[in-house]
């Protein structure tokens, strides 16, 4: 391992060591403010170190990690998401937990996992990253101990993650049995050679199932609404954005580096997954009365849309995934951010039923406007980044001639408008009950929300810079 290797994995080193130091220090100074500041410093330093690592890229640092513009792009996204989530946690935790230092350290560790996943070039690093992420998330989801749903969700996530890991390990073992390698790059030609036995393909399918669990593809989605609902709202934001984004980035790399030859069967499976995921997600979202569950189903549906460009492939496919994820991150953090800010004054519960959002526009117009913007961006209305995200995904489908998928996605997008509107209407109709204004968000949360809103609006008007970045990032994995 040379110095350049170390330079390349700088973001990972900063987060990992920063997290470890923070965890140690928190043991002595368990105050919320110290841990908050420390986590923020570590994450921001890690984000800054991406620019230090960039000159060293693209570089295979050890057989496990590959640092290229692609992994740096996703590391950047994940770090921004973690920073915003940290900001949201600050005020949210105040009335709930006296000793909240560990939560911030856990966010940093979860970030280590996510960056590792995004930079994986090998099944071993994928598995290590996934476990780091999952174990941190158990702690994060169950952190608000006095809330029953929180503990229930942590237990559910534990079972889910264990199942996914079991599938993953078994799948990796089967692939290794047949090909003798766990390296993505070497796996590609071996799988394409056509002399493989069943076990390699069976292994790939099991890996796909494990990824499907993590990304909540239908039919592996059952855990997602419960966990979204039970987890503390800022943590839900992290699950919805960072953890899904990192795994999706890995899936994209896996599909393109291992399938040098087109694999019709793989794309057929993905197409079925896509249709099932977006349709079931949207239809079940129609039935929800709880905003967090509704957003959970919505995020299932969005992952369904995101499979389309995966199938469509280059040149538009990978680029539109990278763009979509950035927009989706900002949008979901804004939406869950509003939920966390509204819930911040409560000691145990959260503001999560649609009925509780009734009249929000009068009680706090800015929060209502932020939520409205997020919902409109999820629907894909112009002047929000969600519009262009949807546009690129659909054009990737058109470019590959996937007309059936395109029409199904369009119909689904129409259905989705219906449930987003329900929340929107509730916020802007007059409430009969409590009319007292909601307290203003704290400075940290306001910063996070403001940043997300700025991203949504700016890239909703002028998406070109982000598009250029996404293009540069994805060129390397799918030339």
């Amino acid at each position, binding site marked *: 391992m040379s110095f350049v290797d170390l330079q390349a994995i700088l973001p990972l080193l900063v987060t990992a060591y920063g997290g470890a130091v923070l965890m140690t220090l928190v043991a002595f100074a368990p105050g919320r403010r110290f841990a908050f500041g420390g986590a923020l410093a570590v994450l921001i330093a890690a984000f800054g170190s991406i620019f230090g690592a960039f000159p060293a890229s693209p570089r295979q640092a050890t057989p496990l990690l590959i640092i290229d513009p692609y992994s740096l792009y996703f590391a950047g996204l994940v770090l921004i998401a973690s920073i915003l989530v940290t900001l949201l946690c600050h005020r949210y935790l105040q009335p709930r937990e006296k000793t909240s230092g560990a939560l911030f350290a856990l966010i940093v560790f979860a970030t280590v996992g996510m960056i590792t996943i995004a930079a994986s070039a090998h099944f071993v690093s994928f598995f290590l990253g996934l476990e780091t992420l999952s174990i941190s998330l158990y702690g994060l989801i169950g952190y608000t101990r006095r809330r029953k749903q929180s503990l229930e969700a942590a237990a559910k996530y534990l079972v889910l993650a264990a199942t996914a890991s079991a599938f993953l390990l078994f799948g990796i073992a089967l692939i290794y049995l047949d090909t003798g390698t766990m390296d993505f790059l070497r796996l590609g030609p071996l799988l394409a050679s056509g002399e493989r036995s069943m076990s390699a393909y069976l292994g790939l399918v099991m890996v796909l199932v494990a990824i499907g669990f993590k990304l909540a593809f239908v039919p592996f989605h059952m855990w997602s609404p419960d966990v979204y609902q039970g987890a503390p709202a800022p943590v839900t934001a992290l699950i919805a954005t960072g953890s899904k984004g990192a795994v999706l980035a890995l899936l994209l790399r896996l599909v393109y580096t291992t399938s040098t030859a087109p694999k019709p069967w793989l794309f057929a499976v993905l197409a079925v997954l896509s249709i099932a995921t977006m349709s079931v997600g949207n239809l079940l979202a129609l039935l929800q009365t709880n905003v967090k569950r509704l957003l959970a189903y919505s995020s299932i549906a969005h992952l369904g849309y995101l499979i389309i460009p995966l199938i469509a492939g280059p040149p538009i496919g990978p680029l539109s995934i990278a763009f979509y994820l950035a927009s989706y991150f900002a949008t979901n953090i804004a939406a869950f951010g509003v939920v966390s800010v509204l819930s911040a004054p409560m000691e145990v519960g959260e503001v999560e039923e649609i009925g509780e959002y009734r009249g929000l526009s009068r009680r706090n117009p800015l929060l209502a406007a932020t939520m409205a913007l997020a919902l409109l961006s999820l629907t894909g209305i112009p002047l929000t980044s969600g519009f262009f995200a949807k546009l690129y995904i659909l054009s990737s489908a058109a470019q590959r001639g996937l007309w059936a998928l395109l029409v199904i996605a369009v119909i689904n997008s*129409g259905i989705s408008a219906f449930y987003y509107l329900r929340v929107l209407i509730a916020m802007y109709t007059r409430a009969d009950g409590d009319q007292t204004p909601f307290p203003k968000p704290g400075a940290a949360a306001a910063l996070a929300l403001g940043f997300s809103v700025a991203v949504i609006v700016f890239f909703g008007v002028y998406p070109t810079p982000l598009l250029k970045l996404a*293009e540069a990032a994805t060129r390397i994995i799918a030339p």
Partner: protein
Amino acid sequence: MVLTWLVVIPAIGGVLAWIASARSNSLARWVALAAIAVDFALAAGLWISAALTRHGTLIAQQQAPWIPQFGISYHLAMDGLSLLLVTLTTLLGVVSVAVSWTEIQDRVGAFHFAMLMLLSGIIGVFLAYDLVLFYFFWELMLVPMYFVIGLWGHENRIYAAIKFFLFTFISGLFMLASILGVFILHGSATGRYTFDYTTLMAAGGAIPYSFWLMLGFFAAFAVKLPMVPLHTWLPDAHTEAPTAGSVILAGLLLKTGAYGIIRFAIPLFPMASGEVRQAAMILGTVGILYGAVLAFAQSDFKRMVAYTSVSHLGFVLLGIYAGTRIALQGAVIEILAHGISTGALFVIAGVLQERTHTRDFDKLGGLWAAVPKLGGFTLLFAMAALGLPGLGNFVGEFMILLGTFAVSPAIAIVATVGFVLSVVYALRLVQRSMYGPNENDWALPDLGAREMAILGGMAAVIFWLGLNPQPVFNTARRSLESVRQILTTSSTEARYDK
């Protein structure tokens, strides 16, 4: 640059009005009025200068890269048709701010912000020369209108707002799919990937699967127009919207559908448009008759006017697809005249609602004695709606029928029945609201100066369109020529094919 100003002035005005509303509501109203009046002056100035100078088909144009990676550019252009519609938009914008002066008391700043954003979107739709930009503005109209209906509307507003949103959003998505289809198929056929209207039009319909792509566009436009049987959102939305919302819906939003057909659906897909021409003319005629019959059966003032819109827009659809020079010119006049006359009827409905708190004919009646000025205007605009010669609608409908007769006498004859039906409903409208005994002892204040100015101005325009429509013809002529050529040649080809 002037085109960008046309689009952004209302939006800036909207933001300023919202900020101003923190200080005082009437300041917000004045800011909104000033912004849209400036925009109107700009549009009118463009019209005057265009009438006085020689120019090509395009009066003004602006193009800048927006998302170059995807062949999307910020391309605005104005030809005669756009100019007419932008002028109408700003004029009705002034009207709608003015009619809301006393009606809207709740969240005044947000209301004017929504209204002016809506107007920006509509102006953008009329000027966009890039398909993505067009869709961008097209969807941009949706959200403010949704809020205008859903927040400031009448009793059943939420239902109406959702219905409006879903109809337009879903049909719009089909258009989006078609836009992408055009982009990809044109690109793979010619190697030039672009959303630019001029380039795509130059391809002259050499795009594969053009029939299906055309249907995507047509779905969006037919819902907006609205074409029977896709009209069911309209009566609800028009009835439940506040007065200004109804004026803009009837006067402008429906017109974006007609404009879209003339600008995009026909020129981009000439052959496919020839194939659906007959069906579209028949559906237009069905709309004329069906809208008129249903209008007759309504007991709600606004709902009745809403159904007359279905009938009048049936004429527009018929005129466009008849495709002769006279019919197309008639369709343009009808678009403008309907915008003014129906807008005025909604203003009257709003005035009545504000004074009597009802729109129900059973509770109205005998108002003439109490409000003679309002009665006079009601009679005038009802006459316009039934197509009295000398008023704008007559010119439009007569020319549409004349132009259609040359293509298909049978359809023209059936459509003429719509004229008779319109007399029935228009007279009933006046009869039920103004004439008869004043059984409920209504004692109302008559029109104030503000209302007189609004209705008087609209009356002047409707007379002008009826008595001297030539300037409109001159302005629109060049824009309609390509549509005429497409429909007349493609249909003769279709005829030879058989």
